[in-house]
């Protein structure tokens, strides 16, 4: 056993040395790319926000005018961040980042923009793991389906048009995939309800999402 000790200690030293070198290299690349990655993510956010709330409807920097909504656990709607759009300091719309938890393969992250009159300004899918070729038509680059929400309103509490055609609603399902659009429609509907119930709070709460200058 004792004759093994020098070999073990030598090998562990070499291994440690390599671990340190590799970690240092990764750390260095991380430092060099960190700012750019942040800018890229921010630019994508700005672009997406401008797509669903056109520049004619706001003149503020939406990605900085936002609130983080604490999850109170009472509602089954998971809201992440709300970006507020204002024109001449008057609230015009809000983009709500939320999650549809009942997709075919897990969560679907959505960005839902709603005008102050309660109509949908636009919806985008941010992240999903739906089946390629079937459920991924919720992506704008695969299909224009997500655009069908634009301009739609929830008329009253019993508005049953907010469902896929198969369930008697007004939104198309996809061939071979009903669960995915059903989950998206349900979450958009719930988000509109939330928006209408909390509209005053949404626009008056001070910005607290801490976006960098």
């Amino acid at each position, binding site marked *: 056993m004792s004759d093994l000790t020098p070999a073990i200690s030598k*090998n562990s030293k*070499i291994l440690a040395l390599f671990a340190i070198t590799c970690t240092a290299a990764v750390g260095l690349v991380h430092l060099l790319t960190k700012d750019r*990655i942040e800018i890229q993510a921010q630019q994508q956010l700005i672009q997406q926000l401008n797509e669903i709330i056109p520049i004619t409807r706001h003149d503020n920097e939406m990605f900085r005018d936002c609130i983080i909504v604490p999850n109170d656990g009472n509602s089954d709607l998971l809201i992440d961040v709300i970006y507020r759009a204002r024109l001449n300091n008057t609230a015009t719309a809000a983009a709500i980042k939320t999650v549809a938890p009942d997709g075919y393969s897990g969560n679907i992250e959505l960005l839902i923009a709603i005008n102050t009159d309660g109509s949908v300004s636009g919806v985008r899918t941010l992240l999903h793991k739906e089946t390629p070729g079937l459920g991924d038509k919720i992506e704008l680059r695969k299909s224009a389906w997500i655009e069908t929400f634009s301009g739609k309103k929830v008329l009253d509490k019993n508005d049953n048009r907010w469902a896929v055609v198969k369930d008697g609603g007004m939104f198309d399902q996809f061939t071979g995939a009903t669960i995915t659009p059903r989950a998206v429609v349900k979450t958009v509907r719930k988000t509109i309800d939330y928006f209408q119930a909390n509209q005053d709070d949404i626009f008056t709460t001070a910005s607290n999402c801490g976006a960098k200058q």
Partner: protein
Amino acid sequence: MKINSEYKELAWQGLWKNNPGLVQLLGLCPLLAVTSTVVNAVGLGIATLFVLICSNATVSAIRQWVPKEIRIPIFVLIIAAFVTCVQLLMNAFTYDLYQSLGIFLPLIVTNCAIIGRAEAYASKNPIKQASFDGLMMGLGFLAVLMVLGSIREILGQGTLFDGANLLLGPWATALKVQVYQLDHQFLLAILPPGAFITMGFLIAGKNFIDSRIAEAKPKKLEQAIERVRVNFEN
């Protein structure tokens, strides 16, 4: 020249005879998962190529200082470090492609083609040859990815180079070719089982060509193929 023939042999091994995709069947997981379009396939292929060259060169450069008992963890460390760097760089410079390749970038670490080459070739040969071997093996892998991606994209979506803008910038949107119009996507080609079947046909095709070549000149002796698994005698 002896050196020249050595490089020729390396190129031949990597691109055809011992192709990591078709013969060694390494890295099947990313190969089958991301080849639904040519652009995704090329994106992952280039990332793998880059990691393969870097890891081969590094492994070769440090081969005198690595005791053979702990060589595998060290190779894994080096490969994982390079993959993480590639991932960060792609996140920074090709953000959209990074998002569409998703989970499969970190999975390059588990691509056995890379550790296979480190172990079988780079750990025993000088830097130049090892880098060249990485380049050729990477190109061979990239070629298989591209062929598989083209077949699946044409069968599944009826297009070619869809989403080239993710890789090359907005101007490349024009590269998209609509080969024929499909009312519905052909799902089997898009999903991994389709990739598996297509892969089978590709391997069969390669074997067919090889047997034809062998028939054409039956007298030539088969050279020993260097396998990935190597037993160390000492």
